[in-house]
């Protein structure tokens, strides 16, 4: 086990993994990373069998040091970062050695950046996961001075890898499938909803994202409605008829009507929208939504196949002479499917 020393940290950083499924009947949403794809990308890059916990950074990072050499990578939001003057690119692995300081700045694109370590962040485990779930009082924001346990990196010298991330930063279209309450909205209200250009409002967190738009409220039949189950991606119309899309740490039941559900593949795009960025909704049928489902294991296998060795401009490498430049040997299995 090694230790990550947090020298300095921006607000809103938490430990996140893939969350805790299976507790809906007890009122606990799965939680986990706001952008799950970012943890799958990190797992592929770092050779993790399944995604391990990482630091989720809500818009800005911090300064970090380690006491044992470990491979790291940054995924999700595009954040400017460097290790002792060596730039650390988006979606590429790098070695962080003891005595070096990693600096992660603000997000240039996207809302949630992930700093992942080859051996994962250990932190406290609760109900089988390490993810902070602030609504439930589980975990807390990472603070300057924290020492966070890391799993060991058993191949710190493995060749650096890079991945072209799936495009999802900067807003765009989100596919929406019908839900149990879609029928409470009149056809003309639904048509107007799918024709409206929204923008992400300033109010957003791990529970959900509020959307702004021009025009009248999206009204629905609501009288006497029982509180019912909510799932991540549900587009809830609050009392004022304005949409609020639920994310990883949402409540599990609620009384507001929901016009539909953003499909899982498009939730990272929603989570990564910065305030003011344009979003619109595209209606898909139930059959189309189900056909678009892909298991996270399949996504990770696909990402693993897309890994490439990192080729760098030699002028960016200050310690060029210390590199093995001839053989191109790798750890052996980074490029293989399992």
């Amino acid at each position, binding site marked *: 086990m090694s230790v990550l020393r947090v020298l300095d940290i921006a607000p809103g950083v938490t430990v996140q993994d893939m969350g805790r*499924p*299976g*507790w*809906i*009947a*007890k*009122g*606990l949403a799965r939680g986990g990373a706001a952008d799950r794809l970012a943890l799958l990308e990190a797992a592929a890059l770092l050779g993790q069998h399944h995604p391990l916990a990482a630091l989720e950074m809500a818009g800005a990072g911090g300064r970090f040091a380690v006491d044992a050499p470990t491979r790291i990578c940054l995924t999700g939001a595009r954040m400017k970062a460097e290790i002792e003057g060596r730039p650390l690119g988006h979606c590429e692995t790098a070695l962080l050695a003891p005595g070096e300081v990693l600096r992660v700045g603000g997000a240039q694109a996207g809302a949630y950046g992930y700093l992942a370590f080859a051996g994962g962040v250990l932190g406290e485990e*609760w*109900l089988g996961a390490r993810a902070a779930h602030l*609504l*439930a*009082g*589980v975990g807390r924001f990472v603070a300057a001075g924290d020492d966070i346990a890391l799993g060991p990196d058993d191949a710190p010298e493995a060749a650096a890898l890079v991945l072209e991330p799936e495009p999802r930063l900067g807003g765009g279209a989100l596919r929406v*499938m*019908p*839900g*149990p309450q879609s029928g409470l909205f009149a056809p003309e209200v639904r048509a107007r909803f799918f024709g409206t250009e929204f923008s992400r409002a300033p109010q957003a967190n791990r529970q959900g994202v509020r959307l702004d738009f021009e025009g009248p409220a999206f009204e629905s039949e609501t*009288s*006497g*409605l*029982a*509180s*019912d*189950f909510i*799932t*991540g*991606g*549900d587009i809830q119309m609050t009392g004022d008829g304005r949409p609020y899309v639920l994310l990883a740490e949402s*409540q*599990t*039941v*609620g009384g507001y009507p929901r016009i539909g*559900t953003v*499909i*899982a593949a498009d939730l990272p795009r929603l989570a990564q929208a910065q305030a003011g960025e344009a979003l619109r909704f595209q209606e898909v049928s*139930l059959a189309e*939504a*189900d056909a*678009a*489902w892909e*298991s996270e*294991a399949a996504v990770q296998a696909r990402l693993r196949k897309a890994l490439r060795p990192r080729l760098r401009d030699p002028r960016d490498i200050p310690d060029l002479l210390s590199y093995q430049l001839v053989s191109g040997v790798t750890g052996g299995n980074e490029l293989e499917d399992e």
Partner: protein
Amino acid sequence: MDGAEITPEVLPLGQDGVLVRFARAVSPQASAAVARFAAEAEGLAEEVAPALASVLLRFDPGRRTRAEVVAGAEALLAAQDWGGLYDPPPRRLWRVPVALEGEPLAEAAELAGLTEAEARAELLAAELRVRAIGFAPGMPYLGYLPEHWNIPRQRDLTPKVPAGALVVAVRQLVLFPTDTVTGWRMVGRCAFRPFRREAEAPFVLSPGDALRFEAVTAGEVEALEGEPLGGAICEGAA
């Protein structure tokens, strides 16, 4: 239409969910149907969760298709009449100390057409069931109070009610596990917390549990705050 008729529908909830909804509105009949269906639906999906008037079947689309889950649910629905059911006998009965007092209690009583003393007596006389757990971790929806308790929300939100607050909401009582903002009227306060983050079993209640409130003073609730279950007693009931 008041939404209370038992008309089961099988609906999608996300790419990995099938929702079986028995009625749009809450009622003892819908909850009884929910309890029966949830008990019989074990195995139809990876996760079976009851709410006030619906049951969620959350499945792993890598292991079974929506069509299979829907077919299983429809076969169960076709096997019996889901109207006119009664609650099964409770497996557990909780007795929970509560201090019933305060300005919002007087307001709620008036809206229900009762004196404050009558309101208190009705809240203490009700044998309630845990109808759903949700919104926040471990938070129970308890029902049902008599029809005249179907009172509207406040016009404005109360910025903060404390952990342990008991509020009245559409013939139900909700016991908040943490400090919260709410539009419902707080009629009492308990030292019992239905979610104990540090405990071996963090979720104290289960859907279907019966629950009765027993009157204590505000001072007694204060004194019970340090107790593991806030003075609540659980009896295995026949």
